[in-house]
């Protein structure tokens, strides 16, 4: 058919702010043009990056009227840069549009985020030279739009219904900022007979089914209203309901709800302020003459509040991740570091010295090598540090993950670990430091990767439990839409939001989380905070199981970090101060006695060994490396014991002091320690490569032999 795409609207200087995983050019934007097109298939909104436009303009005849169908532009021969830009291109049929979010009016330039019926959420289109209003006005010729009464930034597209047209047009007058014009108080509006019926017998109606109630309520409450006018009717409804049903508490949240009737009433959310990152002079001021950190708690508070200056990260993270003990003096740290270098190269040699012939009969190791190989190739390759073919940093990533397999053979390598390592390696820029910091970070999350997935299940159900109290309405909605298992948060929890934030943001988020403030499960509260921000979108779009998952996947890289952290801390404080907080939740939040113990420590008690606590981490590393590894290797692949059990076993009892570890060391292990000291030195001096490395390997074979027999 000779149908030509007709351009109904076009606007230049519309930018997508891309995921550049690098602090240095985090503001990189891709310029492009947005269109409203009349195509044979229907009306489409499209956005195309400028490069793509140029190519199509030169290779095909292209002008504003005669728009070229982009499909033939597909070809593998396109250069990589082009391909990278093209991946941001947007095209959708406006009949698939479910809703969109507009920036707040004072946000500088305007942006629009389009959300489709299937949950697809596109990156924000930033109108640097204006035009967003014009586009939406054009759009209103084809679809019916109304503003959400709960979220002034959210606009909902109504299903096709001619009667709604005038209403929609009225609603769109909001764009002209003469928004006070259209006001409707549904309680007093005689047209809404149904609302009166509801108010008269809410209980019956409620029993009739929440979904009916909510759909109905929603329709009623969502008649066009200015958000500031919504407060009164809602509270009126609440009062009326309360009269009818004594003893029922009515949620008077901003949102009209699926479950208007709730029993929780959390204390008001306190305002939370974030601070500045820990900077160099401040950091230095914490050290005494011997190089010991004087006020650890105070320091952690600062890091929790504002993070760490990027220039300091490689030093500060070594404390946060247990590479150095918090109470160590400079001299002790020098020793600690030396020992860790030796230990690292000893373990690295273990896998380096396994011959191809040997590996044929070592399936487990071979499989892990394969997995690591595959994942290293595709971890953060858009980041400068890992970009390009044959980037040497990929080898470092690989070596650290292989060595971690030796360090924690029971766990091995599981997909997602490379995501945990990558930001750490970028900060450390040093193989040994990165390895030990990675090992420290893994101590905190290793239960996520266990075979039975139990660690994940526990945390997802903890989010569920917390939300039951924190936001029963959202919780009920998710449950009613097959999402009560919170599997749509799986990626968040598994790799601690690594894929949800830009690179510089994830570094900030992680250092905040590693302070274990205000509790060790702060990541769960962060999940609640993000979900709260998405609540209107999920509920008002009536998203189901698949749309919820898709939307949550798609908001990655567009979650505002500082705002989320403020919100999360506020939620924590609300829960903490809630007098009827169930014990099980207090436990999750680390609020149970010993209450006099500072939050950070009680947290470490409740969770995963406390990699940041002083004595236990170094002890564990010692025991884990020198005792545990040989035991595991001898025990064979299927032993299934966790490294924790391994330590306990080797340490012959729960009283795991340095003395008992020493006593538990067999002569065999003692030999291996001696060995490691000998060859480790050589390896260290040569930094693991070249001739020194070879010499080390020779000793290493000898050593490995002894360890394994």
């Amino acid at each position, binding site marked *: 058919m000779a149908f030509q795409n007709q351009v109904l609207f076009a606007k230049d200087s519309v930018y997508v702010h891309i995921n550049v995983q690098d602090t240095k050019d985090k503001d990189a934007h891709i310029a492009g043009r947005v269109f409203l097109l009349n195509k044979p298939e229907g009306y489409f909104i499209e956005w195309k990056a400028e490069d793509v436009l140029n190519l199509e303009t030169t290779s095909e005849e292209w002008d504003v009227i005669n728009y070229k169908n982009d499909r033939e532009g*597909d070809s593998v021969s396109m250069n*990589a840069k082009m391909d990278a830009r093209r991946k941001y291109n947007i095209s959708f049929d406006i009949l698939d549009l479910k809703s969109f979010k507009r920036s707040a009016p004072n946000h500088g330039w305007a942006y629009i985020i389009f959300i489709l019926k*299937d949950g697809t959420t596109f990156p924000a289109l930033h109108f640097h030279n204006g035009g967003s209003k014009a586009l939406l006005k054009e759009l209103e010729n084809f679809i019916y739009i109304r503003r959400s009464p709960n979220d002034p930034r959210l606009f909902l597209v109504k299903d096709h219904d001619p009667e709604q047209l005038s209403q929609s047009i009225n609603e769109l007058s909001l764009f002209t900022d003469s928004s006070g014009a259209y006001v409707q108080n549904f309680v007093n509006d005689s047209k809404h007979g149904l609302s009166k019926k509801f108010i008269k017998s809410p209980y019956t109606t409620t029993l009739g089914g929440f979904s009916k109630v909510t759909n109905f309520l929603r329709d009623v409450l969502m008649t066009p209203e200015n958000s500031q006018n919504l407060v009164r009717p809602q509270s009126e409804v609440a009062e009326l309901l309360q009269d009818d049903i004594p003893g029922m508490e009515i949620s008077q949240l901003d949102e009209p709800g699926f479950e208007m009737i709730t029993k929780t009433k959390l204390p008001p959310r306190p305002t939370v302020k974030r601070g500045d990152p820990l900077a160099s002079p401040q950091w230095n001021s914490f050290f005494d003459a011997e190089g010991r950190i004087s006020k650890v708690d105070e320091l952690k508070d600062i890091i929790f509040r504002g993070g760490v200056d990027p220039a300091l990260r490689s030093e500060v993270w070594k404390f946060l991740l247990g590479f150095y003990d918090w109470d160590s003096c400079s001299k002790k740290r020098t020793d600690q570091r030396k020992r860790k270098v030796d230990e690292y190269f000893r373990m690295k040699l273990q896998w380096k010295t396994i011959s191809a012939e040997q590996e044929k009969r070592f399936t487990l190791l071979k499989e892990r090598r394969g997995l690591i190989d*595959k994942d290293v190739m595709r971890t953060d390759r858009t980041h400068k540090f890992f970009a390009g073919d044959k980037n040497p940093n990929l080898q470092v990533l690989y070596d650290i993950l292989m060595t971690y397999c030796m360090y924690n053979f029971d766990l091995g390598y599981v*997909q997602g670990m490379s995501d945990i390592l990558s930001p750490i390696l970028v900060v450390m820029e040093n193989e040994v430091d990165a390895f030990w910091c990675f090992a420290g970070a893994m101590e905190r999350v290793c239960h996520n*990767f266990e075979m039975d997935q139990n660690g994940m299940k526990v945390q997802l159900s903890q989010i569920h439990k917390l939300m039951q109290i924190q936001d029963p309405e959202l919780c009920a909605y998710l449950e009613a839409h097959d999402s009560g298992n919170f599997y749509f948060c*799986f990626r968040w929890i598994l790799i601690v939001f690594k894929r949800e934030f830009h690179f510089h943001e994830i570094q900030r988020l992680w250092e905040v989380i590693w302070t274990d403030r205000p509790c060790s499960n702060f990541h769960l509260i962060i999940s609640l905070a993000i979900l709260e921000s998405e609540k209107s979108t999920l509920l008002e779009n009536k998203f189901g199981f698949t749309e919820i998952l*898709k939307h949550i996947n798609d908001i990655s890289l567009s979650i505002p970090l500082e705002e989320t952290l403020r919100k999360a801390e506020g939620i924590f404080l609300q829960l903490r101060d809630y007098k009827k907080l169930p014990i099980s939740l207090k436990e999750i939040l680390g609020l149970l006695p010993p209450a006099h113990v500072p939050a950070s420590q009680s947290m470490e008690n409740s969770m995963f060994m406390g990699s940041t606590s002083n004595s236990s981490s170094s002890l564990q590393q010692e025991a884990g490396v020198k005792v545990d590894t040989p035991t595991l290797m001898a025990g064979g692949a299927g032993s299934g014991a966790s490294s924790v059990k391994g330590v306990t076993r080797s340490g012959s009892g729960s009283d795991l002091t340095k003395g008992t570890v020493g006593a538990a060391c067999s002569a065999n292990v003692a030999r291996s320690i001696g060995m490691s000291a000998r060859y480790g030195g050589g390896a260290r001096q040569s930094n693991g490569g070249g001739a020194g490395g070879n010499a080390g390997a020779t000793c290493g074979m000898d050593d490995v032999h002894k360890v394994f027999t």
Partner: protein
Amino acid sequence: MASRGGPQRPNGASQGKICQFKLVLLGESAVGKSSLVLRFVKGQFHEYQESTIGAAFLTQTVCLDDTTVKFEIWDTAGQERYHSLAPMYYRGAQAAIVVYDITNPDTFGRAKTWVKELQRQASPNIVIALAGNKADLASKRMVEFDEAQAYAEENSLLFMETSAKTAMNVNDIFLAIAKKLPKSETSGTPQPRQGVRLNNEQGGQQSEGGCCK
């Protein structure tokens, strides 16, 4: 959704029936599951496509004669460790694409395991397609076409070798599934390309277009 593979709803007038199918992608890690979906849904290919954590969900619509077939595609994580999550995603699926990498025989073995599991655990009438992906890497081939085809025939699977990189057979395999899914009168008809408008492959593979058995 539907940004590039493009064929959307028929333009107003003669809108036939609309069928919606749930399709799940299974297969060993790094065989190209996400890349196949990305090619099918967005017409794109990323050399270093990141691993899938948890699951991803995408939709794409194709037109088959007078029927609009909407695929709801679940893309899963491949590593064995996450196997226990898979039933959550293949439950209720009407179709599955089990993917292996033609340069890696282990992944073919794993594909067979997935097929077995689907035959045992998934919906009884599930349409299963086997995709030998990375067909552009023919010089590194380790799994023979004939071997895979014989296996597919034995097990009544649709089978194609695909390349998410070159787009070879990507739309075709989805299309073949769409044809095989129960919708009454569509089967048997040679598929007119223009009715589908899924022709963003490079040339030379038209002959394989009607691979539906």
